């Protein structure tokens, strides 16, 4: 430290005059402290209000989203490529009058309860064998059709079964979806029987 630096340090120290912490300083500091406390309290209150408002808005939204979480999944599986009722004459064998045995094997409501054989090919439905006294089921010879009670035309080769378990053709994204009503789009969802004569 050279002479100038020593002189500089001395000047800085010697020029300090004693200024007491007077009442005006005290009053100003106290007023600033009060203002700071008020600001903090206001911020805390505002934050609490925002939190409460967020909870009030967010909880119903969260509940509604949780409620609708199973809804869109069922619609995702019901994407039929074509409605069987839209063009009932597309398949000439689907005429209800062409196969009289079809009406005998179907229940009055047009809904058969049963399980689809593995592979998805409707071979010999169990319900048809009993109805004809153990004879060969007529349904195995070709696609049959039936008409539901509400007039909807349902192709017979893929009987309007109600699956009791989750079938393999339901996308894996919705494993919990079990249709409880007879979907009219089932025949188009199982296209393989239509190709097999």
């Amino acid at each position, binding site marked *: 430290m050279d002479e*100038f*630096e020593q002189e*500089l*340090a001395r*000047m*800085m*120290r*010697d*020029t*300090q*005059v*004693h*200024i*007491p*912490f007077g009442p005006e*300083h*005290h009053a*100003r*500091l106290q007023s*600033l*402290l009060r203002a*700071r406390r008020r600001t903090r309290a206001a911020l805390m209150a505002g934050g609490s209000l925002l939190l409460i408002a967020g909870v009030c808005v967010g909880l119903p939204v969260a509940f509604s989203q949780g409620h609708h979480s199973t809804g869109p999944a069922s619609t995702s599986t019901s994407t039929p490529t074509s409605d069987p009722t839209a063009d009932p004459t597309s398949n000439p064998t689907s005429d209800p009058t062409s196969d009289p045995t079809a009406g005998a094997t179907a229940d009055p409501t047009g809904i058969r309860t049963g399980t689809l054989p593995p592979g998805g090919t409707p071979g010999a439905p169990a319900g048809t064998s009993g109805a004809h006294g153990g004879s060969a089921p007529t349904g195995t010879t070709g696609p049959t059709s039936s008409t539901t009670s509400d007039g909807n035309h349902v192709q017979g080769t893929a009987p309007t079964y109600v699956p009791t378990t989750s079938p393999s053709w339901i996308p894996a994204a919705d494993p919990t979806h079990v249709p409880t009503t007879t979907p009219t789009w089932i025949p188009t969802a199982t296209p393989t029987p239509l190709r097999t004569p």
Partner: protein
Amino acid sequence: MRQSRADGFDEFVEARWSALFHLARLLTGGDRHRAEDLLQEGLLKLWSAWPRVADEAPEAYLRQILVRAAARSARRRWWGERPTGELPETAGSQDLAAVVEERTRLESALALLPARQRAAVVLRYYQDLPEAQVAKVMGCPVGTARSLTARGVARLREALTEVDEPVR
């Protein structure tokens, strides 16, 4: 709790007000009003942190607040004038007049420095801190603190020498 906090805090402020005010005044280049604002702002922040720093080093904490706030406030473009009913302090005696004159010279020279150079010089020569401590307070590397101090001293040397030279 608030009462105990206020007690310790008030004692500290009363005991150290004068030195802290002088430090703030040097840091602001002699601006008394800015120095008081700076000190009040620093004391507010110290009050918030008082339970944490009261038993350790409250003055070091406040010094750091003052240095950084002074550098920040120096970046503001304009400091508004404030009307006051008090006249500037006047010299009551010859010694006091000499002190005031010397202080005016010093503060005028300090006011020429950039804020960071001024802070480095004040911390190094008024607070008598080592370079590492200056760097820590200013939040910069030691080399930067050393450079700021050296440049500040060189500029002060030039300014104070020019003032000392007699007019020809």
